[in-house]
């Protein structure tokens, strides 16, 4: 290995990308756009509010106060539906997914139960809903919970089972703080994988690799300069993501050497995969398709965007076989949970994987032409 040669290569690659302003912009802008979009969508996830349509057929003080109690619960924003309209038609016409109907005689039944202790007095609240809507079942679950609470209270008997919440974390974190380590892992993966595959197939197609093979540069010099180049680009991109995250979402993340360690391991692993791909893919277009085939399933399955616990069991098993999963988990352990042992375990797994694919990548890299 010759450090002067490594430095010369690194300088040419950095100069090329610096002068390719469009590529430079999108390299940094793409993950930032993802953070801004997803961050905005999930910014108020802790205070999720549903839109709830209510048709009050009773039109009494009691019925109005009961509905206002739902609003005070903080989960619902109420829209009143005219008692004269057909609720089913209203759901269809107004593209809403649920209308809650308070029946006529609600106040009367309530008085009979509370004032006269009549156990037979009851009312039926009706849900008119659109089952094709994904959020309607969540809404109904919340409503059923609220109604169960009211029934429990009216019975006058204290509940037997109560619940208490105790977080394992020293502080509460927001979705955006969970999301950013995943985006960092994902963008370092795509930068390293696509960067390696695109650069090397392009240079091979243009004959530059052939020219380089007539100079004293070795495969190790070339690959090492590629790793350093991808690492610098990844650090620049990560810095930009973090700056935006702090400025826009005021995130609270723990930044230490683990971040750099995981970026480096991420780069090693995916530059290695990129080198293996480059060995087998000849054209730049096929190379991009092959890199997509690897990176897309990985970014969705490995928990970059959402917790893998939301996926079916067999997909969770697959996720745990993917290298990006360990980068995601490791970065979250370090940046969110401040759990050094978990970060160490993840770094060991991704470190072994990176070493194996990197060695395979060196073996696969074809320096001389068509021996």
């Amino acid at each position, binding site marked *: 290995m*010759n450090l*002067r*040669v490594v*430095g*010369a290569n690194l*300088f*040419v690659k950095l*100069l*090329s990308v610096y*002068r*390719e302003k469009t590529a430079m912009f999108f390299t940094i802008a793409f993950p930032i756009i993802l953070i801004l979009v997803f961050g905005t969508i999930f910014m108020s996830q802790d205070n999720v509010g549903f839109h709830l349509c209510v048709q009050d057929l009773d039109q009494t003080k009691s019925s109005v106060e009961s509905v206002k109690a739902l609003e005070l619960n903080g989960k619902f924003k109420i829209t009143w539906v005219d008692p004269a309209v057909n609720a089913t038609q209203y759901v269809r016409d107004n593209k809403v997914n649920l209308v809650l109907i308070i029946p006529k005689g609600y106040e009367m039944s309530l008085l009979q139960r509370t004032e006269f202790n009549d156990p037979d007095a009851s009312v039926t609240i009706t849900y008119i809903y659109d089952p094709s809507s994904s959020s309607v079942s969540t809404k109904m679950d919340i409503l059923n919970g609220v109604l169960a609470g009211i029934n429990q209270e009216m019975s006058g008997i204290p509940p037997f089972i109560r619940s208490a919440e105790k977080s394992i974390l020293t502080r509460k974190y927001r979705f955006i703080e969970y999301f950013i380590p995943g985006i960092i892992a994902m963008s370092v993966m795509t930068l390293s994988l696509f960067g390696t595959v695109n650069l090397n197939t392009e240079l091979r197609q*243009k*004959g*530059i690799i*052939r*020219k*380089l*093979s*007539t*100079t*004293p*540069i070795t495969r190790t010099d070339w690959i090492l300069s590629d790793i350093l180049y991808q690492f610098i680009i990844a650090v620049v991109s990560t810095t930009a993501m973090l700056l935006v995250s702090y400025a826009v979402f005021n995130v609270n993340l723990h930044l230490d050497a683990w971040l750099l360690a995981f970026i480096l391991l991420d780069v090693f692993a995916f530059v290695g995969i990129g080198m293996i791909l480059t060995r087998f893919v000849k054209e730049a277009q096929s190379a991009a398709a092959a890199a997509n085939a690897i990176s897309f399933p990985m970014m969705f399955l490995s928990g970059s965007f959402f917790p893998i616990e939301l996926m079916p069991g067999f997909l969770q098993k697959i996720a745990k076989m993917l290298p990006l999963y360990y980068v995601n988990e490791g970065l979250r352990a370090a940046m969110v949970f401040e759990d050094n042992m978990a970060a160490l375990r993840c770094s060991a797994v991704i470190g072994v994987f990176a070493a194996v694919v990197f060695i395979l990548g060196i073996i696969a890299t074809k320096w*001389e*032409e*068509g*021996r």
Partner: protein
Amino acid sequence: MTNEAEHVIEVEHLTKRYGELLAVNGISFTVRKGEVFAFLGPNGAGKTTTVEIIETIRTPTSGNVRLLGMDVTKMKRDIVPRIGVLPQGFSSFDRITVRETLQYYSRLFCRGKTDIDGLIDLVNLKDKTREQYKNLSGGLKQHLGIAIALVNDPEVVFLDEPTTGLDPRARREVWEVLQGLKNKGKTVFLTTHYMEEAELLADMVAIISKGKIIAMGPPAELVEKNTNYLVLTLQSVDEKAFEIIRKMGYEPVLNDHKEIKTRVEHTDDVQKILSAIKDAGALYLGLDVRKPNLEEVFLKLTGEALHDGHVGGKGAE
């Protein structure tokens, strides 16, 4: 035993196979120090395979190749710093300037004192030092490629088809650069399918066809040894002149520029043809009678043309 002072390249019974395809078929030749050696042949003849084996990029199937006294299959690390290569279809980093590119390649050879300005002067790129590679014309890209091949002050320079794809003016500019190399006494191994290039620049020419060397020697000697006829060219002729010449028993060829070319054995034949054309009332605007060139030698030896519009003729073998 190698005499490095005399022979910088020695090729013995070199063969290269790609599966069933025999690309190079047992060729042997030597190149002397300070010589410009041209490897002349059509596309697919085996020129690039041969030169890439000598450059250590490919390995031979069989045979011995020694460069600067070293076996190319065993001593790549020692050979590479002492040679310069302009590969076929040369390209470089798009957004790197001429000067930066030369500095980059100089660093790859770990040379601290490369005379970058001298190289830039040699290849006539003085006005383009701050130009990025992508903005250079095809000819100037080749100039840069030649400068890169010289960045380590090599003992042997390999130029694989340095003018292919260039327009005639750019080609002549590259030839000027190559003349400069020749004047500096560099040993140059040039592959080309342009016979003018070989005739103009080479001290020795080897003609290769279908993987075999079919003739080798100085260009003038090759022409002298292999041809005993003249080439008559008539410019801007009537089409009926073509028929007249053909009926006289010659084998004329009409090219896209409305030129008729035909082989004649003596200057008397020229007179006979011109009289016949004049008697028939046909016209021509100019004529040229000259000795054959390497292209015609190639045609005679192989029956193939290096380019379109080759000369046919009476008594062709």
